């Protein structure tokens, strides 16, 4: 398709700005431009057609099944958009005085209460804007907690399993801690014998996703809790996979002390385009004094912001957090009410349905029922036909599906990580299974078809290394001078 600059014709307009009713200021000559900025000049129908056509080049959860593992690409209810757009929320200035922002503050306080209950913990900060920021905030809380106890110098190590999301070790390093990796055992749990040898009085804590990125609930979680708390260390829960257990089991009851919740994943916030996200952290009482300021609190005369927290680690984000995300998430949670458990149960059922139907066509590295996502391997196809997970993923696009997460977790070669979420119908899941089976058949009969896929998309197989190294992120004005400049 043509770029907007290629549609541009000098003098064409899509609209006119309102005429100001104040006199135009007299700008000094040296501050004026010598010629207008080079903006695309198109008519309104051209403008609408251009951007509408662009939207058709995107694949989103509104256009098709999007089983991107660990990303929880569920349908985002439209009614929540309407609520986030209520003028009282939409037009509120973040510096509005507390007395004139009572509705917003009450919503945040009520969301905090819901997250406390969901996590089984005591105190919340809604500030972190994403899971990764929740992680670094959680580690800063650990540091503040141990420093306050005089153990800051000694406790410098954080244990992370080899199945962890990449953000976990990155956060550990950013927070100035030393990373200790622990292996996964043949059943897909943390190797407890290895773990016992790696936790001692120098350990600050654990970062764990449960269920893990293998889609498996760690069966040793009670022993893990004894090991860490027995050593005086803390436990951090990466809430990326909360969709599997929400309303069924609470991280606080598993022994976790700090949790981040990915509001954008679990509670129906549109995501996948780079934001906005939400990564509140929920902590046990002993860590509450260190939470970011200001805290959203309920007082006798209403709701307010409390800055009087002398042990706080300080602010981690401007204002009180990603407010639109908070509105949608609160609405999402309230729409389920006490039935929130059904959301997780349906997500787990859908994933196990796919597992049961696909385990004979692809390898299942851990022969167990899964939680909200399943990890398959294409290593048999790689070995026998030279076709890998990447080729399967690209071919799925020809069948109209977004590819699953591939080559992750790292412990599974040729991994295909599939998360259907609770919002898909049986018919959609069946169509996905049919496509995956057809692709497995194609891999055996005509592997070239997969290696050259996708065949039906606007662009074919990309040179991904070149795409990363030679970024073209703006129009090449130098190569395409404006007509006036040519003249």
């Amino acid at each position, binding site marked *: 398709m043509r770029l907007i600059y290629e549609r541009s014709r000098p003098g064409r307009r899509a609209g006119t700005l309102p005429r100001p*009713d104040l006199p135009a200021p007299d700008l000094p000559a040296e501050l004026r431009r010598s010629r207008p900025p080079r903006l695309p000049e198109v008519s309104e129908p051209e403008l609408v057609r251009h951007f509408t056509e662009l939207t058709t080049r995107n694949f989103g959860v509104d256009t098709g099944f999007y089983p991107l593992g660990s990303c929880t690409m569920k349908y985002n209810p439209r009614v929540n958009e309407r609520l986030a757009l209520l003028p009282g929320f939409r037009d509120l200035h973040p*510096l509005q*005085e507390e007395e*004139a922002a009572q509705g917003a503050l009450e919503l945040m306080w009520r969301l905090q209460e819901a997250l406390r209950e969901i996590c089984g913990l005591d105190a919340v900060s809604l500030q972190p804007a994403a899971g990764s920021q929740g992680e670094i905030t959680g580690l800063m809380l650990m540091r503040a907690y141990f420093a306050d106890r005089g153990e800051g110098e000694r406790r410098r190590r954080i244990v992370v399993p080899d199945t962890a999301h990449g953000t976990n070790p990155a956060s550990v390093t950013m927070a100035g801690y030393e990373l200790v990796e622990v292996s996964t055992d043949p059943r897909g749990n943390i190797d407890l014998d290895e773990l016992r040898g790696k936790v001692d009085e120098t350990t600050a804590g654990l970062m764990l996703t449960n269920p893990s990125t293998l889609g498996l609930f760690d069966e040793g979680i009670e022993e893990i809790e004894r090991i860490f708390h027995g050593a005086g260390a803390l436990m951090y829960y990466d809430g990326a996979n909360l969709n599997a257990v929400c309303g069924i089991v609470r991280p606080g009851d598993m022994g976790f002390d700090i949790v981040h919740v990915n509001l954008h994943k679990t509670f129906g916030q549109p995501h996948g385009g780079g934001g906005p996200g939400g990564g509140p952290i929920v902590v046990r009482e002993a860590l509450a004094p260190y939470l970011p300021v200001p805290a959203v609190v309920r007082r006798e005369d209403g709701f307010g912001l409390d800055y009087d927290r002398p042990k706080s680690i300080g602010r981690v984000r401007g204002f009180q957090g990603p407010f639109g995300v908070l509105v949608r998430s609160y609405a999402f949670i309230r729409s389920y009410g006490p039935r929130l458990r059904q959301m997780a149960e349906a997500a787990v059922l859908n994933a196990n349905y796919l597992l049961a139907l696909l385990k004979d066509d692809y390898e299942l590295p851990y022969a167990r029922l899964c939680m909200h996502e399943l990890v398959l391997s294409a290593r048999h196809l790689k070995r026998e036909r030279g076709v890998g997970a990447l080729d399967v993923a690209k071919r799925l696009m020809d069948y109209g599906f977004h590819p699953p997460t591939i080559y992750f977790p790292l412990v599974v070669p040729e991994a295909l990580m599939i998360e259907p979420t609770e919002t898909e119908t049986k018919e959609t899941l069946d169509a996905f299974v049919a496509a995956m089976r057809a692709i497995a058949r194609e891999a055996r009969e005509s592997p070239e078809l997969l290696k050259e896929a996708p065949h039906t998309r606007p662009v074919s197989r990309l040179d991904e290394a070149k795409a990363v190294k030679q970024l073209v992120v703006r129009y090449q004005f130098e190569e395409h001078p404006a007509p006036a400049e040519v003249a």
Partner: protein
Amino acid sequence: MRVGRDGREVIRAARARGVHPGYSLGRDYPGLDDCLLVALTERRTVADIERLVETLREVAG
């Protein structure tokens, strides 16, 4: 601008008349309790500005 009395009270009184006149600098700067920070964007008309002036005349000290 100095409004002759506590900025928060001026904002409260103006808001009761349907106008949000600005930001009370006393929230950040002790000693500037009688000051408002007022910003106008290109979206405000002359009529809007006149309404703001009229409201502040009524509620300022």
